[in-house]
C-alpha cells in the first residue's frame, strides 16, 4: 500500500462517513422542521450533500471500473431528477393555493395567476 492508496482510502472514508451524516441530518430535518415548506429544505439536504458525498465515496472505492461509470450515471440522474421532483412537489402545493408562512416583517410574493396560454398545459389540465 503506497501513499496514494492510503490517501484515497482515507478520502473515501471521509466522504462516505460525512455523506452518511448529511443523510441523517437531512431526514432529521424532514422530521423536525415545523411545516411543509421548511421540510422541503430538509429533504433537499439529503438530495444534494448526501447523494454527492456518498456517490463520490463509492466511486473512489470502486476505482476505474464499470461500477464507477454506473455510479456516476446514477449520480448525474439523481442530480437532475432530485431538484426536479422537489420543485414539482413544491409547485403542486403552491398551485393548490397554499402559501408558506412568512417570517416576521416579510411579505411573500404572490405568484402570477396562470394565464390562458398555460391552460392547455397537460399537467395543468384543460378542464378548469
Amino acid at each position, binding site marked *: 500500500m503506497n501513499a496514494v492508496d492510503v490517501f484515497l482510502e482515507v478520502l473515501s472514508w471521509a466522504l462516505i462517513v460525512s455523506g452518511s451524516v*448529511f443523510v441523517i*441530518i437531512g431526514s*432529521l*430535518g424532514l422530521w*423536525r*422542521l*415545523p411545516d411543509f*415548506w*421548511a421540510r*422541503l*429544505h*430538509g429533504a*433537499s*439536504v439529503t*438530495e*444534494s*450533500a448526501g447523494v*454527492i458525498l456518498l456517490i463520490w465515496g463509492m466511486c473512489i472505492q470502486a476505482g476505474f471500473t*464499470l461500477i464507477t*461509470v*454506473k455510479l456516476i*450515471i446514477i449520480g448525474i440522474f439523481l*442530480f*437532475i431528477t*432530485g*431538484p*426536479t421532483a*422537489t*420543485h414539482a412537489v*413544491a*409547485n403542486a402545493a*403552491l398551485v393548490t393555493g397554499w*402559501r*408558506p*408562512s*412568512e*417570517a416576521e416583517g*416579510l411579505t*411573500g*410574493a404572490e*405568484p*402570477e395567476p396562470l394565464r390562458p396560454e398555460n391552460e392547455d398545459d397537460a399537467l395543468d389540465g384543460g378542464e378548469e
Partner: protein
Amino acid sequence: MTLAGLFALWLLMSGLFKPLLIGFGLASVLVVGWITSRMDAQDGDHLDIRLSPLRLAGYLLWLLAEIARANWSVMRIILSRRMPVRQHLFRVPFSQKTDLGQVIFANSITLTPGTITVETERDNFLVHALGYDENDDEALAEMDRRVAQVETAGGV
C-alpha cells in the same frame, strides 16, 4: 450530435465491445433517435443545447462549493434547538436566453439547500428560502450571472 452522445452513453454503460452488442447499440440509438424526433415533432418545443462544456464544468465546480456552504447553514438550522427559520417567498429574475439555461439556473437554486424554486414565470422564478437574509438576493444574482455565462451565444 445527440445520437453520438447517446451512443457514447451506450458504450459507457455496456463496457462490452462485442460486435453483436455494438450492433444492437447502434440499432437502439437509431430507434431512440427516431422516437425522440417524433416526440419533438409532436410537442413542437425542440430542446436546443447551447452550452459551452468547459464553462459548464467550471460552473459545476463553483456550484459544488456553493452547495457545501448552503448545506452548512441549513445543517446549523436543523440541528440548533430553536431552529431559527426565517421563511420567505420572493422573486428572482433570470437572464438566461435558452430554456435549458433557465432550467439549469432553477435546478441550481433548488439544489442548494435553503432555497427552492417553487414556480417558473415569464421573467422570474418564485423562490422559497428557509433562512432568508438580505444577502440571498445578491448570491442568487451572482448564480444567475454565472449560469448565463455558460450559455454560448447564438448558433447551434
